[in-house]
C-alpha cells in the first residue's frame, strides 16, 4: 500500500474543511512549528488502519476517562472521517474509516462498508508503519517485561504475548478471587480441622488446615486421617469410606457407654416406616373385610351339612354306579331314577357351599400374612424402650426439665400403645386362624362373626392410638434430641471420633482445594510454556532482526565508540546493552537522550520495514527530536536513503526542524519530493501550503518590490531565480524527474527553452516568460544609466509568473 492522497475531516486537530493532501511522491516532507497539527496527520493514518493510536493506547493505561471521545475534533463537527486514496497490489483503492460513536468506527473500501482485510490490508502490530514521536523511547524507558512484550509484538509474536498476558491475568484473578465453592470449602475445612483436638498424628494437618493460607496435601492428609481412624477404632482402614464405617460403629459403642441411644432413638427414617406400618394396618383391615365378605357368602348359601368328605363319598358312589338301581353301599335296589335325580340335585347344592367355603379359605390364606406383616411393620417402628435404670441414666444426663417430663410421658404412652396393639394383633390373628374351622360349624357362625368384628375394631382402635402416640413421641424426642446428642458428644473420646468422621465424610472439600491448587499449577505451567516458546522464537528472530536494529542504529551513529550494543532477551524481560569504549553497560541508564532516541528509532524502523508488511510506506513524526546536528545529518543522509532505496518504502516525514526539512529537500532533488508547510493553525485545523519554497520566495519578492531601490533590484534578481526554480520544479512534476545534468549550470534563457519542451506548456506562456526573463536579465543592471524599475513596472512580471505557476499547480 502506497499513499496517494489523504483527506482528514473533523479528526483530532483537523476541522471540517477536509482539504486533500497530495502524498503521491516517494518522499513527502511536512514542516510545521510545534502545535500546528503534524501529529494529527500521523494519528489519522494510525487510526485509519488500526482503529486506534499508540498515544491513545498508552494514555488509556493510566486514565481511560481522559481519553474517551478524543478522536473527534474538539469543536464537535461531524462526520469524523479519515479517507485515504492509495495504490495497493497494482490498483488504486480508497480506504476510509468513520467514527460512528465516541469510540466505535466503521471501515469502507471504495465507499462500500467492508473490512480492510478483504483487500489484503491486515494491520498487525508487527507491521506498524507509523513511528510516533511520543513513542520513540517508550520501548527503552519501560519495565524490562514491558520492553520484552513490545519487542515480541514488533517481531510478530503478539499472539503469544497476548495469550501469556491473558493467562497471567486470568490466573491472578482465579487466585485472588476464587470461586465461591472454593471459598466455602476453605471455611468448612478450617472449621472442621479446628475440632481435631489432641488426636495423635493430626496436629500437623490441623495446623495446615487452620493456617492462612490454608494448605492441603491431599495424599498425606488422607493418610494421616486413616491412621488416626486406626488409633481410635483399633482397625486401620484402607479407604476413606471404610474409615467412616469403622468410625460410625465406634461412635455407637462409645456413645452407648454414655447413654444407649438405641433404647429411645426413633428409627432413622421413621416417617417412611410409619407410613409403611399405616399401609400394612390398612391392608390388614381390607383383607379382614374380604374374609368377612366370604364368610357372609357362606352364610347366605345353604348351610345344610354336607362335608367335603361326605360329598366326595357320595360323588364317588354315584360314579361307581352309573347304571341300574342297585346301591353300591347296601346292595339294595334303592337307586331309582327319581332318587338318583334327587341325589344329583343335592350334590349340586352342596357344591355351591363347597365353593363358598373354598373362597373363604382362600381369603383367610390371603389375610393371614398381612397380620404378620403389620406386626413386623410395628416392630420396625418401635424402639426398645427404657427400663428403670436407663430412665434414671437419662434423667442424670439431662437433668429435670419440662421437655424431659413430656418425653418420658410420651415414651410411656408409646410403649403402652405398642403393647396394646400387639395384643390386638395377636387376638385378631387367633380369631382369623380359627375362622375356617368355625365356619364349618353352623352353630358357631353367628358368634364367629361377632368375634371377628370385635377383633377388627380392636386392631383399628389400638393402631390409631399407637400412631398418635408415635407422633407425640417423635415430637417430644425432637425437642430433647439435640441436648442428648450434645451431652453424649461432650465425651472426649466420642468428640474425637465425631471430628475425624466429620472430616472424612467431607473430604471432598479437601479434594476440591487440591484440584484448585492443581488448576493454578497447570495454568502456571502453561504460562511458562508460552513464555518459553516466546523466548525461543524471540531469540531466533532477534538474531536476524536484531541485526537490522543494530544496522539502523549504526547508520545514525557512524563510527561511534559509545552506543548501543545488543538486545538480550531474558526470562520475561528484555535487557538493552550499550558499549562504552568496549565496556558493556546498561543502555537505558547510560546512553544519552540522543542515543536513546536513535535506538528507539532503530527499533521501530525495523518493525516498519518487516518484509511481509502490506504497508509500502513509513511515516515518521518528528524523528530527530533530541538529536544533535550530526545525528540529524546522519538520519537525513543515512537512514532516509536506507528506507527509500534499501527498503523501497514511500516516506512521509513530519518535522518542526526546518533545517532538516530543507536539507532533505536539497539531498533528494533527484527524487519525486512533495514538500508542505503548515503555515497556520486555527479552529478549522492546520492550514497547509503546497510547495512552500516557491510560495515563500514569491511572497519575499512581492515585499521587496515595494521597497527602496536596493530592495527592488533584489526583487528583480529573486524573480529570475524563482523563474528558474519554477521551471525545474515543473519539469520534475510533469516529467517525473529533475532536468538532466546539462541544465545544472543552465542560465535563464536555456531553462526557458527547456520550459517549451515540457508537455502542457503553451507558446504564449513561453513568450511571456521570455519577456520576463529579459526584464530580469542581470546584464541590464550593469548598463550605464540603467534606471532601477519601480514597483508598477515590476508588479506585472510578478503577477505574470504567479499566474503561470498557479496554472501549473505549483502554487
Amino acid at each position, binding site marked *: 500500500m502506497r499513499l496517494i492522497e489523504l483527506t482528514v475531516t473533523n479528526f483530532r486537530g483537523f476541522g471540517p474543511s477536509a482539504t486533500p493532501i497530495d502524498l503521491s511522491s516517494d518522499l513527502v516532507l511536512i514542516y510545521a512549528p510545534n502545535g500546528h497539527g503534524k501529529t494529527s496527520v500521523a494519528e489519522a493514518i494510525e487510526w485509519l488502519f488500526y482503529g486506534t493510536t499508540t498515544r491513545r493506547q498508552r494514555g488509556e493505561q493510566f486514565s481511560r476517562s481522559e481519553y474517551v471521545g478524543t478522536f473527534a475534533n474538539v469543536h464537535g463537527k461531524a462526520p469524523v472521517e479519515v479517507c485515504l486514496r492509495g495504490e495497493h497490489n497494482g490498483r488504486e483503492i480508497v480506504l476510509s474509516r468513520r467514527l460512528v460513536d465516541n469510540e466505535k468506527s466503521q471501515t469502507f473500501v471504495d465507499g462500500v462498508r467492508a473490512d480492510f482485510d*478483504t483487500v489484503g490490508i491486515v494491520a498487525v502490530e508487527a507491521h506498524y508503519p507509523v513511528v510516533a514521536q511520543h513513542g520513540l523511547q517508550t520501548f527503552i524507558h519501560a519495565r524490562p517485561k514491558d520492553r520484552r512484550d513490545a519487542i515480541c509484538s514488533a517481531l510478530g509474536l503478539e499472539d503469544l504475548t497476548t495469550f501469556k498476558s491473558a493467562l497471567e491475568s486470568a490466573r491472578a484473578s482465579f487466585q485472588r478471587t476464587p*470461586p465461591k465453592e472454593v471459598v466455602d470449602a476453605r471455611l468448612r475445612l478450617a472449621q472442621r480441622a479446628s475440632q481435631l483436638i489432641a488426636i495423635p498424628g493430626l496436629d500437623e494437618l490441623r495446623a495446615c488446615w487452620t493456617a492462612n493460607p490454608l494448605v492441603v496435601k491431599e*495424599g498425606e492428609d488422607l493418610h494421616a486421617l486413616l491412621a488416626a481412624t486406626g488409633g481410635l477404632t483399633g482397625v486401620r482402614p484402607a479407604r476413606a469410606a471404610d474409615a467412616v464405617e469403622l468410625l460410625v460403629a465406634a461412635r455407637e459403642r462409645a456413645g452407648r457407654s454414655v447413654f444407649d441411644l438405641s433404647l429411645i432413638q426413633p428409627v432413622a427414617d421413621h416417617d417412611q416406616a410409619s407410613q409403611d406400618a399405616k399401609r400394612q394396618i390398612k391392608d390388614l383391615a381390607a383383607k379382614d373385610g374380604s374374609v368377612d365378605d366370604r364368610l357372609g357368602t357362606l352364610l347366605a348359601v345353604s348351610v345344610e351339612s354336607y362335608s367335603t368328605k361326605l360329598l366326595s363319598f357320595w360323588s364317588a358312589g354315584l360314579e361307581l354306579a352309573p347304571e341300574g338301581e342297585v346301591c353300591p353301599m347296601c346292595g339294595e335296589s334303592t337307586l331309582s331314577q327319581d332318587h338318583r335325580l334327587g341325589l344329583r340335585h343335592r350334590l349340586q347344592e352342596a357344591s355351591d357351599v363347597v365353593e363358598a367355603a373354598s373362597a373363604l379359605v382362600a381369603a383367610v390364606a390371603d389375610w393371614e400374612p398381612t397380620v404378620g406383616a403389620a406386626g413386623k411393620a410395628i416392630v420396625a417402628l418401635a424402639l426398645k424402650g427404657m427400663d428403670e435404670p436407663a430412665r434414671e441414666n437419662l434423667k442424670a444426663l439431662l437433668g429435670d426439665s419440662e421437655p424431659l417430663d413430656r418425653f418420658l410421658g410420651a415414651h410411656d404412652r408409646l410403649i403402652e400403645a405398642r403393647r396394646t396393639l400387639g395384643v390386638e394383633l395377636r387376638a385378631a390373628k387367633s380369631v382369623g386362624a380359627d375362622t375356617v374351622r368355625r365356619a364349618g360349624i353352623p352353630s358357631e357362625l353367628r358368634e364367629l362373626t361377632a368375634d371377628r368384628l370385635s377383633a377388627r375394631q380392636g386392631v383399628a382402635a389400638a393402631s390409631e392410638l399407637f400412631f398418635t402416640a408415635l407422633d407425640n413421641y417423635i415430637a417430644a424426642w425432637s425437642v430433647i434430641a439435640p441436648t442428648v446428642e450434645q451431652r453424649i458428644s461432650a465425651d472426649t473420646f466420642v468428640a474425637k471420633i465425631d471430628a475425624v468422621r466429620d472430616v472424612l465424610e467431607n473430604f471432598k472439600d479437601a479434594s476440591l482445594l487440591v484440584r484448585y491448587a492443581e488448576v493454578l499449577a497447570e495454568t502456571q505451567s502453561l504460562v511458562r510454556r508460552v513464555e518459553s516458546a516466546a523466548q525461543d522464537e524471540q531469540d531466533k528472530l532477534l538474531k536476524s532482526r536484531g541485526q537490522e536494529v543494530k544496522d539502523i542504529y549504526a547508520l545514525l551513529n557512524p563510527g561511534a565508540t559509545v552506543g548501543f550494543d545488543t538486545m538480550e532477551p531474558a526470562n520475561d524481560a528484555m535487557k538493552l546493552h550499550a558499549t562504552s569504549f568496549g565496556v558493556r553497560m546498561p543502555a537505558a541508564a547510560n546512553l544519552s537522550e540522543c542515543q536513546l532516541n536513535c535506538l528507539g528509532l532503530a527499533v521501530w524502523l525495523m518493525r516498519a520495514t518487516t518484509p511481509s508488511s502490506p504497508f509500502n510506506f513509513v511515516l515518521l513524526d518528528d524523528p530527530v527530536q533530541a538529536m544533535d546536528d550530526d545525528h540529524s545529518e546522519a538520519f537525513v543522509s543515512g537512514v532516509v536513503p536506507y528506507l527509500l532505496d534499501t527498503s523501497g518504502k514511500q516516506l512521509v516525514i513530519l518535522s518542526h526542524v526546518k533545517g532538516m526539512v530543507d536539507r532533505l529537500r536539497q539531498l533528494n532533488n533527484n527524487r519525486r519530493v512533495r514538500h508542505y508547510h503548515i503555515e497556520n493553525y486555527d479552529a478549522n485545523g492546520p492550514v497547509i501550503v503546497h510547495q512552500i519554497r516557491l510560495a515563500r520566495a514569491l511572497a519575499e519578492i512581492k515585499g521587496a518590490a515595494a521597497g527602496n531601490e536596493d530592495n527592488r533590484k533584489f526583487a528583480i534578481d529573486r524573480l529570475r531565480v524563482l523563474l528558474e526554480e519554477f521551471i525545474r520544479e515543473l519539469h520534475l512534476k510533469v516529467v517525473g524527474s529533475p532536468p538532466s545534468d546539462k541544465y545544472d549550470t543552465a542560465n535563464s534563457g536555456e531553462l526557458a527553452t527547456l520550459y517549451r519542451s515540457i508537455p502542457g506548456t503553451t507558446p504564449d506562456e513561453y513568450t511571456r516568460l521570455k519577456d520576463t526573463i529579459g526584464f530580469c536579465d542581470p546584464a541590464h543592471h550593469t548598463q550605464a544609466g540603467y534606471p532601477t524599475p519601480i514597483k508598477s513596472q515590476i508588479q506585472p512580471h510578478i503577477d505574470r509568473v504567479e499566474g503561470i505557476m498557479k496554472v501549473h499547480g505549483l502554487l
Partner: protein
Amino acid sequence: LDSPRLTDKLFGDQQFQACTTKKTMLRKDYVGELRIQGDADLQSRLIDTFSKLRQQEGIKHADIVTRLKEQMESALNTSTNASD
C-alpha cells in the same frame, strides 16, 4: 467452480475464508504449536479457547481473560477424587 453459488456452497463465506487465510499467512501460529505439545486437558482447553477468541475481530483483552478464567473454574469439577 465458475459458478459463484457453487463456490459459496463449497467454501462458505468467501470473504471470511479469504480474511482468515491472509491472516494465517501473515502470522505464524505459535499458539497452535503449543497445543500440539500440550496434553493436559486444562492446558489444551485454554489454548483452544484463546485460539478461537483471537479469530474474533475486536475481541477485548478483558473478555479473553474472563473466558480463560471460566475454563479454569470448570476444570475444578474434574476432581481427582483421592478420597475414593
